[in-house]
C-alpha cells in the first residue's frame, strides 16, 4: 500500500481545470427522496416502546428555585421519570458545539437551581405519550425567589447591575479573559499601529454607533433528539445536529460515560444556520435512556425553539474612522458590546469574528483596533448564527463606508476600490485575531471583489439610480451597497476526514464526517470525489455523519465543509486514483506513467481496462486487496470569499412602507463546485438577511419574556415578499482549496442590512442606526425630518 501510494502522480485535472463533474450543477443527491417525502428526519425515526420528553421552563428572567416538588406529577399514570437540578449531576459545560477545548465559557449545567432567562430549563418529564408528559409538566410545583433581572445589555457592567453568574468555578478551559463578577463573558483588545495617533493624522474623523438585533434562525425543522440503547447496550442518539462528533464528546462529558459507549447519527436535517451547532437536547434524551432503559424522544415545539434554543447575538458597535481627503482610510476601530444572553455560548468567537472578518477588508489602514466585550444578561441565549459576528460587524462597517464616501463626495464604489484588500496582500488582523487564540498569517491568493463591484453596479443600474431619488408620487427610490468577506474554515483548528472504498461495479463508497444540514455537502463532496476518480456522481455512494461509521469531522460550521472537508475528500480520492492506476499497471504490464484515466476506464498503449475489471482483479485475482483509502485535512489558511451587494428600495413617504425592489449579490467563492447550489446558498442567505433587516424582531415585555414566539408574529419573508434577486457568481481560483473552491454559505447574510440601510439613506436622507427598518420607524423618522 505505502509503495502504491508513494507513486507521484498529480491529478492532471488540477492543472487543466477541464472538469467533467466539478462546476456542473448536478442534482442534489438527496433531493428526490426529500421531495417525495421519503427522506428521514429525526422525528421520522420510530423505535418501539419510545417514551416522550417535555420540558418545564422558567417563567422568570432571574430567579432562584426555593422548592421543587414533582410528587403530584409522578403520580400521573404514564409518567416514567422526572429530572431536575436535584437529581442529575452538576457538570459545568458549554452548549457550544465547538472543537475541544471549546473557546466558550463553561457556565451551564444540565439543570440549575438558578434561572437566568425566561425559557431556562427547570425540569424534564419522561412519559408514555407527549400528552401525559405535558400534563405532568403542568403539575410540577416550583417556588421561586425572584431576583432583579438584567434586561438592558448596555447596563450589564454598571456597578448596581445584577450579577448573572456569581458562582465560583466557571470560565474558559483555554483561560481566556472572563470576569463574571462584572457580567463580562469575553473580552478582546487588538491594536495595530496606534489608533489615537492615526485619528490625529487623519483629515477627517468619524464616530457612529449602530445596533444589531436578535434573530431567530427559523430552521423549519425544530430541534429534536431520539436516544435508545442498541443490542450491546451502547447509547445511540439520533439528533438534529450540525456537529455529531462534538455532540458525542459533550454527551460523554455530561452523561459520564466513555465516548465509546455513544453513537451519534445525523439523519436528514431540516436546516440549521448555526441553531443546531448547540448541544442541549441530546443529553436530555440520553440521560433518560440511561436512567430508565427506555428509548426517549424530544421534539421542540416552535414556541420552545423561540424561547429556549439559540438566537443571534445582539451587538452595539461604535465605528471610529480616520480618513484622508483622497479617500485613504488611515485609521479604523470597531468597539463592540455584545449581548450573549444568560449563557456564554460562542461569547468569545462571535465577538472576535465581528473584527476578524471585517477589518481585513480595509487592510491598508495602518492603525486599526478591535475592542470588544461580551456581557451576560437575563435574556435568551445567543449562539452561532450564519454570518457569526461578521453580520453584526458589517452592519456598522458597511454604513460607515457610505457615510465616509458621502462626506468626501466620492462614489462609495471608489472608496472600496481604493481601500479593499487585493490578491497578494495580507492583513495584520489575520494573525492577531483568531478564534479563541492567535490567528494565522495568510496572503490572499484569490480575490474577485473588483469584478463583484463592477458587475453588481452594472446590474443594479448604479450610475443611473444613485443619488437620483427617483420619485413616483409619494414613493421614492434609492440604491445602496456594501462589500464584505468571510472566511473558509477556522485555520489550525478545524479538521475533516474522508474514507473511500471501491466496489466491483466501479462504484465507490464515500464516507465523511462532514454534516449535510440541507446545504448539499453530501452532493458537493461526492462531486469532488467523482471528479478526481473520473466517474459520475451516480457512482459515488455518499454516507455522512455517523460517529460509528464515518471518520471525524468538526461538522457544519465556519463555512468549512466545501473548503476543508472537500480537500480531505480530494486527497483521499487521489490516493484511490493511484491505487487504481497501480492495479491497472499490474494487469496491463505497462508502466504507470503510460496510463491515463477517463470515464471509468484506464487506458494503456494498445488497450483499456474498465473500473469493474480493475476492482475484480484487486478483489479476486492476484495480490488481492481492497482498494480503499482515508485522508484528513486541516488548514493553515482561511481564504475569504468576497462579495458586493446592491439593494434598490422604494419607500412610501406617506406611510413609511419599505419595499426592496431589487437585490443584487455578486460573490467570489473561488471555483463553484455546483453552481446551482452556490446560487441557492446565496439566495437563501440574502433573503434571510433582508428579512432580518426589515421584518424580523424579538419583542420582549418588561419582564424579559419574548412575546412573539411564533411565525405569526415573528415575520420571516415569504415568496410574496421577494424582491427581484440577481445572483452573480464571479469565478476565481483559490489554489489552497479543492478544485479552486472557497466557501459561500455564510457571506451572503452580511450584506442586506448595510446595503438596505444605505439605500434608505439614498432615498430619504435618513440614517438608521438600529435594526430592523420597520415601516413604523421609517415613518417616525420621516416625520421627524420634516419638522
Amino acid at each position, binding site marked *: 500500500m505505502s509503495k502504491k501510494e508513494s507513486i507521484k502522480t498529480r491529478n492532471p485535472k488540477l492543472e487543466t481545470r477541464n472538469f467533467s463533474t466539478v462546476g456542473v450543477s448536478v442534482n442534489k443527491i438527496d*433531493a428526490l427522496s426529500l421531495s417525495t417525502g421519503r427522506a428521514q428526519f429525526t422525528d421520522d425515526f420510530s423505535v418501539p416502546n419510545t417514551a416522550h420528553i417535555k420540558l418545564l421552563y422558567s417563567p422568570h428572567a432571574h430567579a432562584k428555585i426555593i422548592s421543587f416538588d414533582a410528587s403530584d406529577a409522578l403520580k400521573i399514570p404514564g409518567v416514567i421519570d422526572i429530572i431536575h437540578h436535584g437529581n442529575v449531576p452538576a457538570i459545568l459545560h458549554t452548549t457550544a458545539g465547538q472543537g475541544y477545548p471549546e473557546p466558550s465559557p463553561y457556565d451551564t449545567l444540565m439543570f440549575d437551581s438558578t434561572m437566568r432567562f425566561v425559557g431556562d430549563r427547570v425540569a424534564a418529564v419522561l412519559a408514555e405519550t407527549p400528552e401525559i408528559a405535558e400534563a405532568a409538566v403542568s403539575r410540577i410545583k416550583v417556588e421561586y425567589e425572584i431576583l432583579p433581572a438584567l434586561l438592558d445589555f448596555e447596563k450589564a457592567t454598571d456597578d448596581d447591575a445584577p450579577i448573572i453568574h456569581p458562582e465560583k468555578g466557571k470560565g474558559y478551559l483555554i483561560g481566556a479573559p472572563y470576569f463574571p463578577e462584572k457580567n463580562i463573558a469575553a473580552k478582546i483588545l487588538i491594536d495595530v499601529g496606534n489608533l489615537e495617533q492615526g485619528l490625529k493624522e487623519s483629515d477627517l474623523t468619524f464616530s457612529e454607533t449602530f445596533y444589531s438585533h436578535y434573530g431567530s434562525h427559523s430552521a423549519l425543522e425544530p430541534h429534536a433528539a431520539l436516544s435508545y440503547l442498541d443490542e450491546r447496550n451502547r447509547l445511540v442518539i439520533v439528533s438534529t445536529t450540525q456537529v455529531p462528533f462534538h455532540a458525542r464528546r459533550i454527551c460523554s462529558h455530561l452523561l459520564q460515560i466513555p465516548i465509546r459507549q455513544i453513537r451519534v447519527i445525523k439523519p436528514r436535517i431540516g436546516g440549521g444556520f448555526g441553531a443546531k451547532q448547540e448541544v442541549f437536547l441530546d443529553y436530555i434524551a440520553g440521560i433518560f435512556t440511561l436512567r430508565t432503559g427506555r428509548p426517549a424522544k424530544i421534539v421542540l415545539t416552535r414556541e420552545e425553539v423561540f424561547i429556549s434554543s439559540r438566537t443571534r447575538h445582539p451587538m452595539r458597535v461604535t465605528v471610529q474612522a480616520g480618513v484622508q481627503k483622497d479617500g485613504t482610510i488611515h485609521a479604523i476601530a470597531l468597539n463592540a458590546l455584545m449581548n450573549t444572553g444568560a449563557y456564554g455560548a460562542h461569547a468569545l468567537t462571535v465577538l472576535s469574528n465581528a473584527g476578524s472578518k471585517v477589518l481585513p477588508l480595509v487592510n491598508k489602514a495602518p492603525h486599526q483596533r478591535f475592542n470588544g466585550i461580551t456581557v451576560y444578561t437575563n435574556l435568551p441565549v445567543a449562539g452561532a448564527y450564519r454570518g457569526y459576528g461578521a453580520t453584526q460587524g458589517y452592519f456598522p462597517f458597511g454604513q460607515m463606508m457610505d457615510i465616509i464616501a458621502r462626506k468626501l463626495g466620492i462614489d462609495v464604489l471608489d472608496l472600496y476600490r481604493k481601500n479593499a484588500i487585493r490578491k497578494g496582500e495580507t492583513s495584520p488582523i489575520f494573525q492577531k485575531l483568531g478564534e479563541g487564540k492567535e490567528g494565522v498569517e495568510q496572503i490572499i491568493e484569490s480575490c474577485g471583489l473588483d469584478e463583484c463591484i463592477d458587475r453588481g453596479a452594472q446590474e443594479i443600474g448604479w450610475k443611473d439610480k444613485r443619488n437620483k431619488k427617483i420619485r413616483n408620487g409619494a414613493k421614492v427610490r434609492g440604491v445602496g451597497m456594501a462589500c464584505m468577506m468571510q472566511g473558509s474554515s477556522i485555520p489550525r483548528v478545524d479538521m475533516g476526514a474522508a474514507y473511500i472504498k471501491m466496489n466491483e461495479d466501479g462504484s465507490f463508497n464515500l464516507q465523511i464526517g462532514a454534516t449535510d444540514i440541507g446545504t448539499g455537502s453530501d452532493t458537493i463532496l461526492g462531486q469532488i470525489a467523482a471528479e478526481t476518480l473520473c466517474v459520475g456522481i451516480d457512482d459515488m455512494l455518499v454516507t455522512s455523519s455517523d460517529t460509528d461509521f464515518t471518520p471525524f469531522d468538526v461538522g457544519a460550521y465556519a463555512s468549512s465543509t466545501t473548503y476543508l472537508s472537500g480537500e480531505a475528500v480530494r486527497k483521499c480520492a487521489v490516493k484511490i486514483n493511484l491505487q487504481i492506476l497501480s492495479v491497472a499497471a499490474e494487469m496491463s504490464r505497462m508502466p504507470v506513467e503510460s496510463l491515463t484515466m477517463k470515464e471509468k476506464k484506464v487506458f494503456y498503449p494498445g488497450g483499456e481496462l474498465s473500473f469493474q475489471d480493475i476492482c475484480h482483479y484487486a478483489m479476486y485475482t492476484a495480490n488481492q486487496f481492497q482498494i480503499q483509502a482515508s485522508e484528513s485535512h486541516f488548514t493553515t489558511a482561511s481564504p475569504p470569499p468576497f462579495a458586493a451587494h446592491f439593494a434598490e428600495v422604494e419607500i412610501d413617504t406617506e406611510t413609511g412602507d419599505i419595499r426592496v425592489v431589487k437585490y443584487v449579490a455578486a460573490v467570489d467563492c473561488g471555483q463553484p463546485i455546483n453552481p446551482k447550489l452556490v446560487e441557492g446558498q446565496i439566495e437563501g442567505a440574502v433573503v434571510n438577511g433582508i428579512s432580518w433587516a426589515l421584518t424580523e424582531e424579538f419583542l420582549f415585555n418588561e419582564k424579559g419574556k419574548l412575546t412573539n414566539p411564533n411565525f405569526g408574529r415573528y415575520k420571516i419573508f415569504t415568496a410574496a415578499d421577494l424582491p427581484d434577486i440577481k445572483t452573480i457568481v464571479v469565478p476565481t481560483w483559490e489554489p489552497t482549496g479543492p478544485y479552486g473552491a472557497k466557501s459561500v454559505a455564510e457571506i451572503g447574510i452580511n450584506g442586506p442590512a448595510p446595503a438596505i440601510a444605505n439605500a434608505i439613506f439614498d432615498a430619504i436622507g435618513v440614517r438608521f442606526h438600529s435594526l430592523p427598518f420597520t415601516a413604523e420607524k421609517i415613518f417616525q423618522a420621516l416625520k421627524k425630518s420634516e419638522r
Partner: protein
Amino acid sequence: LVINQTKKSLEIQPGETLLETLRANGYTGVKYGCGSGDCGACMVLLNGEPVNSCQVLTASVVGESITTIEGVGTMDKPHPVQEELVKAGAVQCGYCTPGIVLSAVALLNRNPHPTDEEIKMAIDSHLCRCTGYVKIIEGIRNASERTDIPGSEFKVPRAKHRK
C-alpha cells in the same frame, strides 16, 4: 378517511389533529413546523385543496379525501413538479418541500399555466429558510411548461367547490 385514494379506517384520539393522525400512521412526509398554521410544512390536500393539517381536527374530515406527499409521486415515478424542483436546485434541507409540492400540484391542477405572481401567491403560505424561494418558483414554472402534467397516475382529486 380516503388517504391517497385508499380507504383507511384509523383510530384517533379526541382532539387529534390531521397532522398527528397522518404522522402516527406512517405518512411522515407530512412535517411539523410550527403547529399554528403559519409555515405550510404540514400541508396536505383536502379534497384537492391545500390545507395546513395542523389546523384540521381529524374528526372533522372523516370520510373526506386526503392527499399527502406519499400520494403524489415516488422515487421511481416522481411527479413533474418534484422532478423540476430537484432539477432547479429548489430542494435544500427539503423539510418544506413536500408541502410546497402539494400546493404546487394543486395550483397546476386548477391553473396549468400560472404566472410567476400566481406561483408566488400559491406558495405564499409556505416558509422556506434555505432557498430564498427563487429556485422553488423557477422549478414550479418549469413544471408548468411541461406537457406531461398532470400525468393521469398522479392526478389528485379536484376540489368539490371552487371559489
